């Protein structure tokens, strides 16, 4: 067994109870608006693993914008001795320090297996919340992913939409040296981890839908070509044909085709490749720049950047072939589009003065709104839930990755200062 399905052996069981319904409705509660005060108590049992679970879960919930995670130093009880069931929890004590919600449970490790049981309690109701109880089983190394899974479940319970945190972000970064390599970031990491060792320039990383590989363009053999790195083994294989120059490629949602930017004699166009890297169709054939294709989730259309009107603008087109339809109507420089996995929205970067900002609009370009303002921000990539975006931002100095919700109400720094983190690509949810 190989591949990125790290939780292949992890068991997830919904714990039954007689719980209260979720007290929160999406209408009064959105990321960045009203934030819910929540206490996350390290599960009782293996103290180190319990702390790790609480740390990762806290960060995810903080990033979501829906929660204000209470400082554990204000907790008045010892998590190793206090009760973890509704009849044994001191709800009045938790209310006194301002907690409206409470995560509690147990974590046991033995014989290489970790068993976690957690629930969300409503402090005012003095009961657990419907569908919030989970038993998770896996290895010690799975604990961060158990936390991501649980964070995603809590967002499902509280907002009706599963969270995006059990997933990965591929990016290019110079954190390892002078030149850009492909990196991967998960929400439990302090800094991104390096996947490639190209001693060259790498650009445009993109996930294979099964998350086993990341496609990217590399200058390792002079002119840029497409390569794919195997995430588990870190082996790199050439993907595109020797004689052609490519600036990037993206796998179709079903993993059978690749949309690629081909550069030929100074001109760039969009091509469709099969899974072995052979050209099956030239989708655009124009003297202007055509770059940065991104798939619609139905796999039938794509969005790309073209300068055919005289300035870089965003267009959509059918894979089967059609006239490109321009969707960006404002701004003189619009680039790096991304189609929401829900299909309804497209994000891109637009130039305002000497900076770029992230725009989110309907898939037809309607109702565009700028969701960033600080620094320069580009290369947006959608979360698998279609609710959040990751992008590269210059706010705070060098380039780092930031997360925002699609309305821009919550903006959170993901990777620490000191990197040159660019071209993030958010994976689908891990299996």
């Amino acid at each position, binding site marked *: 067994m190989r591949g990125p399905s790290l939780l292949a052996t992890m068991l997830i069981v919904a714990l039954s109870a007689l719980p209260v319904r979720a007290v929160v409705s999406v209408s009064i509660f959105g990321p960045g608006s009203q934030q819910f005060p929540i206490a996350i108590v390290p599960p009782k049992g293996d103290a180190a693993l319990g702390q790790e679970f609480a740390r990762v879960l806290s960060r995810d919930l903080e990033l979501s914008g829906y929660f204000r995670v209470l400082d554990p130093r204000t907790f008045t009880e010892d998590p190793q001795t206090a009760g973890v069931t509704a009849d044994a929890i001191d709800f009045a004590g938790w209310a006194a320090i301002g907690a409206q919600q409470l995560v509690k449970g147990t974590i046991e490790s033995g014989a290489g297996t970790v068993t976690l049981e957690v629930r969300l309690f409503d402090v005012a109701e003095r009961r657990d919340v419907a569908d919030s109880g989970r038993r998770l089983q896996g290895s010690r190394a799975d604990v961060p992913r158990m936390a991501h899974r649980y964070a995603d479940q809590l967002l499902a319970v509280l907002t009706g939409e599963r969270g995006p945190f059990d997933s990965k972000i591929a990016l290019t970064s110079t954190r390892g040296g002078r030149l850009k390599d492909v990196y991967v970031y998960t929400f439990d990491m302090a800094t991104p981890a390096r996947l490639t060792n190209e001693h060259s320039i790498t650009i445009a990383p993109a996930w294979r839908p099964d998350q086993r590989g990341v496609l990217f363009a590399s200058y390792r053999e002079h002119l840029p070509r497409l390569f794919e790195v195997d995430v588990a*083994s870190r082996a*790199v294989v050439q993907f595109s044909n020797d004689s052609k120059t490519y600036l990037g490629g993206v796998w179709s949602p079903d993993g059978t085709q690749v949309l690629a930017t081909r550069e030929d004699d100074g001109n760039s166009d969009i091509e469709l490749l099969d899974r072995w890297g052979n050209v099956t169709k030239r989708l655009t054939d124009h003297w202007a720049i055509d770059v940065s294709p991104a798939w619609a989730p139905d796999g039938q259309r794509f969005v790309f950047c073209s300068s055919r009107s005289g300035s870089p603008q965003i267009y959509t087109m059918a894979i089967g072939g059609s006239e490109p339809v321009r969707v960006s109507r404002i701004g003189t420089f619009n680039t790096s589009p991304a189609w929401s996995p829900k299909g309804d929205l497209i994000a891109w*970067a637009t130039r305002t003065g000497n900076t770029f900002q992230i725009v989110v609009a309907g898939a037809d370009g309607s109702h565009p709104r700028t969701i960033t303002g600080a620094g320069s921000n580009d*290369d947006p990539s959608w979360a698998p839930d279609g609710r959040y975006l990751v992008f590269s931002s210059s706010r705070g100095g060098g380039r780092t990755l930031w997360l925002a919700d699609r309305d821009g109400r919550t903006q959170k720094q993901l990777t620490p200062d000191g990197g040159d983190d660019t071209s993030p690509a958010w994976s689908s949810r891990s299996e």
Partner: protein
Amino acid sequence: MLALCALVALGGACKKKGPSPNENVGEQGIGEENLGGGSGSLDRARQGLAPGEGGPLQDVHFDYDSDDLDETARGVLDQNLQWLRDNPRVRAELEGHCDSRGTIEYNVALGARRAKAVKDYLTGQGLAGERLSTISYGKELPLCQEETEECWARNRRVHSVVGGQ
């Protein structure tokens, strides 16, 4: 087993290697770096050097988001053309570069157009096309990093690397 390895690998501790054409020596292994030959801007970066600027062939500069050759650029290229005629065994690689504004992939495409515009001008004046090759580095190998008009203008260029004598 390999699935577990993948998770550990993210922390840099998993040393299992696949059949990579590029022997991937990890942080804790023997560091081996191709210091390369060549004097192109990427070769120089691999050696820890700044990108090349000028040389026997002068750099040609461009307006923002443009691959047009203005009068100044054509004047520079006429001098470069004379040098190439005087040194008939020299080949040149034309490197397209861009300023930091705009996205990475777009700028690689723009740099390719700049290099192509220079190549077309030189061949249009009668220079043999096989003496010229092109490559674009977009905004990946800048001469300077400041977000100022002066630095942007310096980075919007085609740099010519001579070789193959």
